[in-house]
């Protein structure tokens, strides 16, 4: 919980990782990809305040103690949702797989929610694994990483018929929150790999599922915003928006937030630190303190207040994941509830 000016903010970090990208975990023959990947992530950390930068060795593999301190002691987080990314062609035991992440859940009850993942290219074996993960960890969400390389394939899309089979299975198992992540992505090679039209189709076909588009479709915010106005079950995951822009490019940050507030609305924006890329502390403090800069270019964006920030930092995600929020962190009765899906269709034109 974060407290500021007498207001208490319940914090759900809805997108974070517990990874091992150390050289010992690099797949022989794929070292250049494993190294290139983690160095790419590390460069993103440079967009944060300098006093939160880590040396590459720590960034490749941080300890459980470090994570617990950064999130819960220093970072105000109440509940963290682990989002797996496998990348097993590059990292022998996976970059951060469901089991590694879930080891935290079992050791620290109440602090974590473990999401699983699936990959439609895994077919029957993938369906069985999804069932096993849900049975073991009670997963209510899954992370889609469509850019994963697998046996010569450089990626997949939610339009694939096989993906529909997994979405049906997710719905059946109560895995209702589908976090979609598009980058850094390279496939299909001859088209725009960041295109979000596949999410649009899936969201229409599976209205009972929620689709949280991580880092709001960056670098295609405009496509994401257009899609999100038309799909009541599409949410904006703020990971990367806050971490990558708030400190490094504050004016662009304000504009991106303004666009999201206009097209998607504060009831459908969820905070995620993307830890270990960025520590949550400065992001949470900064977001609570944030407002639009002065200037005409920001004047017609929707305004934010304490209630908006409470929703973004925790209440919206708590609703998606059925997390109990202490009464002291709830919105006052007259501020209204975070929107249910069907309210959101009114947002935007």
């Amino acid at each position, binding site marked *: 919980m974060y407290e500021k000016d007498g207001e208490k903010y319940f914090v759900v970090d809805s997108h974070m990782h517990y990874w091992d990208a150390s050289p010992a975990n690099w797949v022989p023959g794929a070292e*250049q*990809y494993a190294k*290139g*990947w983690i*160095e*790419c992530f590390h*460069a*993103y950390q*440079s*967009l944060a305040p300098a006093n939160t930068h880590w040396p590459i060795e720590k960034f490749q593999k941080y300890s459980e103690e470090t994570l617990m301190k950064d999130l819960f002691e220093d970072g105000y987080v109440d509940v963290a949702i682990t989002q797996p990314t496998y990348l097993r062609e590059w990292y022998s035991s996976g970059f951060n797989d469901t089991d590694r992440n879930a080891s935290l859940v079992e050791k620290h009850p109440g602090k974590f929610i473990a999401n699983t993942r699936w990959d439609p290219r895994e077919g029957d074996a993938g369906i069985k694994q999804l069932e096993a993960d849900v049975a073991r960890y009670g997963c209510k969400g899954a992370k889609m990483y469509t850019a994963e390389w697998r046996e010569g394939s*450089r990626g997949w899309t939610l339009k694939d018929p096989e993906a529909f089979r997994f979405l049906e299975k997710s719905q059946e198992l109560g895995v209702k929150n589908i976090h979609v992540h598009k980058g*850094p*992505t*390279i*496939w*299909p*090679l*001859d*088209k*725009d*790999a*960041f295109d979000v039209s596949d999410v649009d189709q899936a969201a229409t076909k599976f209205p009972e599922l929620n689709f949280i588009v991580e880092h709001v479709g*960056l*670098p*295609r*915010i*405009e496509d994401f*915003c*257009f899609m999100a106005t038309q799909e009541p079950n599409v949410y904006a995951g703020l990971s990367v928006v806050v971490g*990558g*822009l708030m400190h*490094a*490019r504050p004016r*662009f940050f304000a*504009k*991106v937030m*303004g*666009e999201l507030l*206009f*097209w998607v609305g504060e009831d459908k924006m969820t905070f995620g630190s993307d830890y270990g890329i960025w520590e949550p502390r400065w992001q949470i403090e900064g977001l609570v303190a944030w407002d639009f800069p002065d200037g*005409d*270019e920001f004047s017609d964006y929707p305004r934010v207040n304490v209630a908006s920030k409470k929703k973004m930092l925790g209440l919206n995600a708590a609703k998606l994941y059925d997390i109990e929020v202490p009464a002291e962190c709830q919105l006052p009765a007259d501020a209204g509830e975070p929107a249910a899906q069907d309210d959101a269709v009114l947002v935007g*034109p």
Partner: protein
Amino acid sequence: MTQAVTVVSRVLDALGTVRDPELDESVTSLGFVGSCTVSDDGVAQVRLRLPTYFCAPNFAFLMVADAYDAVSAVPGISRADIVLEDHFASTEINDGVAARSGFVQSFSGEAVDELENLRADFVRKAVWAGTDRVCRPLIAAGSAGEDLIALTLGRVAPSADLDRLRARRAQLGLPAGDDDPLVIDPASGAAVALESLPLHLRRARVTRVGVDANTGICRGLLQERYRPVAAEGETR
């Protein structure tokens, strides 16, 4: 000496016409040109670098291929040697461009189409973003919706943003003459009706914000990735 310097500056000027298709900015202003030299026998050596190891290979291919074409056309250049560095697909891209093989052949089995459709999609985004760049100052200066839809390109005060918008429209075959409307649908080229204008301008703005934010992140990542190299370059 003076001769060599002149040729190098002509090569750099040529590289200035090469754009990152996704960001609609020149590779020189983005800092993507790591080095550029010309040998006595007219061989241009250009090293290109990108913000990350995993930057999209299709856009990277277009930049390397465009740089090859632009530099090859410079008078006094006998051969253009364009090398993309530090990228997961450097080998395929560099070899493919050098052999003039095209994208499909360079990524055999992985790509079906050449990249002109992709390029056009992003020029269209540049038209959207450019519409915001040109219209926003007019609105700030008091132009109402009726004024904007009545304006023709030839009656807008000259600016770099206006030139850029017209160039992008012309590239797509959209109306770009003095008598053509300032505000058009970037898909069809048709004029925009007054009742559609507010949403049209909103869409133009969100497109510009997206491109600008993306450019901001790319600049930050490039700066971090090549910090030591950039510091050396400054002392030269």
